[in-house]
Every structure is written in C-alpha cells, then in structure tokens.
C-alpha cells in the first residue's frame, strides 16, 4: 500500500514493536488457558501459568514421628524419618525451620539449634533427625517447617479427568449432535430461496429482500418467549417432551436463515448473466439450472455460510439453554462450561481443560477455513454500506 515508506521510514521498528505488543495482548489470555490446562493441578493452584517452565516453591508444615517411635542413639534420644514420605509430597527440600516465624531459616544439611539443647537437621531428600539429651515426652511429634521445590510437571491428567468424570466427552457428542444438522439443513433451504430472489421475476421480490435484510438484525430475544410457549404447547398437546433435538435444529435453522439467504443471494445474483441465459435458451428448467449450474458455482458462498453457522451454533449458549434440557444427554459444551463455572469455580485445572476442549473445534475450523470466513464477512458487511 504505502510501499514507498516501507524501506525508508526510520520508525518502522516502532510499527513492528506495536504490532508485536498487540498480538501478545490478544493471544496471551488464550495461551494462559492452554498452558494451565496441561499443568499439574497442585502447581496450577499455587503459581501463575507464566512460571510453568520454572520450578515452583511451596512452604509446607510437617511433623516428625510421634515420641513413642523415638530411638536412643549415641546418648541422645532421636526422632527420625522422612518428612516428604510422611506428607506424601514430591520434590526436593530447599530450606527448613522449626519456628513458624522463620519457616525457612536453615539450609538443608545445616543443624538448627532449638531450645533446650534440641537439634534438628533436614536433608534435601526429606530425611530428618531431631535429637535431645532427655527422653521425648508427649503424644505428638515436633513440627517441621520446610520449603519444597518441585520441578515443572506437565500432564494430560486434567483432560483425562474432564473427558470422563466431568462429562465433557458426552457434551462434546451432544454439541456435535446439535451442530451438524443445524448447519446443513438451512443451506439447502436458503440456496433455493436465494436463487428465486436473485434470478426469478415476481411481484414482491424487492420487499422480500428488504424483509430479509431487516430480519438479519432482529434480536434473538424477540423470538424466545413465543417459541418457548409454542414448543411447550406442542409438547403437551402431543404428549411429547418440549425440549428435543428436533426443536433446536429447527430453531437454529430459522435463526440462521436470514444470513444464509442474504449471503447466498448477493453471491448468486453476481454470477454471470450469460451462463444462466444461455442455459435458459437451451431449454433448461429453473430446477436444472439451479442444481447443475448455480449450486456448483456458489460453493465459496455456501462454504462461507456453513462456517458462520457452524461457529455460531457450536458457540451458542442462549438457544441451547432455552430449547434443550439440562440432562446428561442434552447438555451441550457451552452449557456444561457455564454449569462448571458455578460448581467448579475455583478448580482451574478442570475449567481450563474443559474450555480448551470446547474451543479447539472452532479454532481448527477457523485456521483451516479462514479464507472462506473472511470472504463471507466481507460479502456480508461491506455490501450493506
């Protein structure tokens, strides 16, 4: 574009730097989610995801063995054992202490002088000895404060857990069940209508096009209550459940149609007139023209709409909450995520892994079919102005 300034501008590095900053700003939240989802859940809870590649440190309070297990050695009464094994922790110990005020006052291997000639030593592998000249009394062991350093742990355990125990696997299937028919059915209906609106002459055509443009922006909220009443009415009249997959397929078809008709009509009306007219002259019917010429030529527009509709249905929460139930075999991914936000609010290992499974499908579609998406966006918006 401003090709001349590409090389001579001394401020080019400012452009590079600002774009880099913006890209980081836009991608870091998602990267944080992904990194967190493959971290060990104990580490995730105590340290930020940006520290994932470094060892994490954790302060722990443990206790020695009870006085009844003491041994007598070299004139001293000794409490000994391995504090890591006793507490079930892994990692290496960096420091220890015997008072809450100074939980990391001593390095491993040092001998800490406690009150009344008591001495404590803790090694990096967790083994400790606490000695005193007199016999230990009392019921409980002495407290040991220590700092463990754990190497970074990456794991797929979070994914394993959400896919099975948390029901994300089932919801994934439910989401697919909603999405596939809801994407395919409107395409065909819209394609026929678009052809009529683009290439057939009949009274009221201009009005219908205007109506479709108007319906493009009608908020979904306007449809919810009457349709909910309608579905409940149909359900109780025929004695069938009101919340069914068939219901949501049709609802998504209806809500997606304005965009489908609008995009496809714009595209089909710009196909070269000569092709269609020469086919007419050769005696082809409208139906033949549509199937043999229009459909194959409109593939890019069909693909654009299919991607839009797929993303919109897969990512939809509102329609699914109103027209589908909360049961195991109907809860879609977005609904499940929303439920987890309430019930598992603090369990970030579950939330991050679930969220990532939810967004991986649309992201895959996005990155492989991006050019159709861009083309559709341009056709859908620039035209209006």
């Amino acid at each position: 574009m401003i090709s001349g300034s590409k090389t001579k501008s001394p401020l080019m590095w400012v452009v590079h730097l600002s774009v880099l900053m913006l890209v980081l700003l836009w991608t870091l939240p998602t990267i944080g989610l992904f990194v967190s989802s493959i971290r060990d859940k104990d580490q995730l809870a105590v340290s930020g995801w940006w520290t994932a590649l470094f060892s994490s440190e954790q302060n722990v309070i443990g206790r020695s063995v009870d006085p009844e297990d003491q041994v007598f050695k070299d004139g001293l009464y000794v409490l000994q054992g391995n504090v890591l094994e006793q507490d079930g922790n892994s990692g290496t110990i960096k420091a220890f202490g015997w008072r809450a005020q100074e939980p990391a006052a001593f390095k491993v291997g040092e001998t800490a002088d406690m009150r009344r000639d008591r001495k404590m030593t803790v090694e990096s592998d967790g083994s400790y000895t606490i000695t005193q000249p007199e016999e230990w009394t009392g019921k409980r062991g002495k407290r040991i404060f220590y700092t463990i350093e754990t190497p970074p742990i990456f794991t797929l355990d979070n994914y394993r857990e959400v896919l099975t125990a948390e029901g994300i696997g089932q919801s994934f299937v439910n989401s697919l069940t909603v999405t596939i028919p809801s994407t395919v059915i409107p395409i065909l209906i819209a394609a026929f209508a678009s052809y009529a609106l683009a290439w057939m002459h009949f009274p009221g055509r201009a009005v219908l096009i205007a109506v479709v443009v108007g319906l493009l922006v009608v908020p979904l909220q306007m449809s919810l209550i009457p349709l909910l009443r309608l579905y409940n009415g149909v359900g109780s009249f025929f004695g069938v459940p009101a919340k069914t997959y068939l219901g949501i397929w049709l609802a998504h078809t209806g809500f997606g149609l304005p965009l489908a008709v609008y995009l496809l009509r714009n595209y089909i009306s710009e196909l070269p007139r000569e092709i269609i007219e020469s086919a007419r002259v050769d005696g082809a019917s409208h139906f033949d023209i549509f199937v043999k010429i229009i459909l194959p030529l409109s593939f890019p527009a069909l693909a654009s709409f299919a991607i839009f509709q797929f993303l919109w249905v897969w990512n939809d929460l509102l329609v699914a909450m109103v027209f589908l139930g909360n049961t195991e075999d109907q809860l879609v991914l977005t609904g499940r995520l929303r439920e987890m936000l309430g019930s598992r609010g603090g369990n970030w290992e579950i939330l991050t892994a679930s969220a990532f499974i939810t967004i991986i499908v649309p992201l895959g579609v996005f990155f492989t079919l991006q050019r159709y998406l861009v083309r559709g966006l341009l056709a859908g918006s620039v035209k209006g102005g």
Partner: protein
Amino acid sequence: MEQLASALGTVIVGVLACVAYFYGSNWLLDRVFPANAASAEKGIKNLQIAHAVRPWLFLGPALLTLGLYLVYPALDSVRLSFYNSDSTQFVGLDNYVWLWFDDGFRQSMFNNMLWLIFVPAMSTFFGLVIAALTDRIWWGNIAKSLIFMPMAISFIGASIIWKFVYEYRGEGSAQIGILNAIVEALGGDPQAWITIPFWNNFFLMIILVWIQTGFAMVILSAALRGIPEETIEAATIDGANGVQIFFLIMVPQIWKTIAVVWTTITITVLKVFDIVFAMTNGQWDTQVLANYMYDWMFRGGGDFGRGATIAVIIMLLVVPIMIWNIRSATRDSKGH
C-alpha cells in the same frame, strides 16, 4: 454415539426431504400446467401460470421457517408485552410502567449505554489501527490471523479465559491471574476486579472488544486496500507524513465502511448475554438488558409479560439500525 448417528440420519433425511420437495413440486407444476398443451393458447397460458407459481415453490420452505421462527415470534412478543406473567390477562401498559420505575431495568439501560459507547468504539479503533499497521509489515498476515482468532471462540469460552486473567487470590498467596500478578509486580494491590461496581463493567466489555476487534480489522483492512493509490501518492508528494495520510486521506475514504463495522458491532452489543451471564450474572451492578430479559423469562417460574417487554425494548434500540440497513441495501440493489 447412537445420538450422533441419529443426527447424521437427520441430515440425510432432511437433505433428501428438501431435494424431494423441490424436485417433486417443480415436476408437479410442469405436469399440471404443461407448456405443450393441446392448443398453443393454452400452452402459453400454462407457461405464464407456471412462471408465476415457481418462485414461491423455491421460496416456500424459507418463507415458512422465517415466518414461524422470526416474524411470528417478533409480533407475538409485542403482543405478550401487554399481558400478565402467564399471558392469560391483558394488562395494558402495566409492564411498561413497571419497567420505567424498575431499578434493575434502569441499571441495565445505563450499563447497556456504556457497552454501546465503549465496545464499538474500542473495537473499531483497534481494528483500524491494527489493519493499518499490519498492512506495512511482512508478517502482517500472521499477526492478523492471531488477532482474528478470538472470533472463533464462544462467549462462554472467552469468559473462562478472561475470568482466569482477572482471577484474584487473597492477600499473602501468590496471584495466579496475570492481571493481578502484573499489578502486584508494579507495586499495586491485587483486586477482585469483577466485583468493583462501575469499573467491573469495563472488565466485562474488554472481553467483547477482544472478540470483536478481529472482525473490525478484517473488514477495515479490506477497505484500506481498496483506497486508490493515487490519493496517497499525491499526499506523499505534498509532504504529508504517515499519521496525516492515515487520518486525513485514508480514514475519510473508508468512512462508510467504518459506519458498517460500528453498527454491526452495536447489534452484537445489544444482544450480549453470555458474557454477563457467565461472569457475574448481573451481580455487582453489571446487569444488561439481554441478561435481565433472560432472568425475568425464567424467574419464579417465568414472567413472560415482563420478559417480552424487555425484549421489545431491545428491539426498539435495534430498529434505527435496521431501517438504515434496509435503506442502504435497497439503494444498492437499485444501482444494480
């Protein structure tokens, strides 16, 4: 799996039914009104009838679905807004009067206005800046692709992503939310951001800006590329610098596209539901119209009258844009 099979089955049945309908109805039309009838006069007459009927065969299923799922419900919502909670009794303007004095509604309106100003403005601004900057560097397309990416993420997924960014841990424990970690590193005090009234609205809006900027960027980038090179060259020769060229030469030429982007995002903002629903559900003074509508629709068994009234308000806010869209679309097709 059985369920998926039934979904795939539906796709096949649906597609076959569509094909059967379109093929069958066209075939029937040609049979009932054949062009090669007994007399030439009759044949012409038949052709004319078939010609008049055929468009409606093509349009039929689409018009039926649009009517049932959009037109009829929209009209019915207006009707229901004059009825009581279970739609059994006509109550006149009661729902609207209630709305006028309702604190929740006032708060939703106020917040929606904030959203309407902030989100389209910021998305368009960032979209324009990024479009202009990325056009000048060799890795611009990669950068654009990455900034465009949030478009594919669901609002609820985005809410989880950003809830993690805003995550707050009490004094003394390490912050695992990156925003609080940065604030702490800069010497500030960590906050539970989404519970601070008024400002928390902006933390929610940022999520939508994050999603919508990619859309603005894609459209505006295409518009910028459509600017005739000569205008820029002329300005360069006249000694204009980069910033001047951008604001005085380029932006005025894509003014119309900016308006389209702005209005499209405005529509999205008016319908925004998932983000508020997932992040706060309207607590801490973050209520917006769409969430408030959902709330009334199901609250205490559902108050359809009040819910419909709030939906009508959302619709009224959309109407100006709708008219503007229809006018520019019809102007376009006339020029065709």
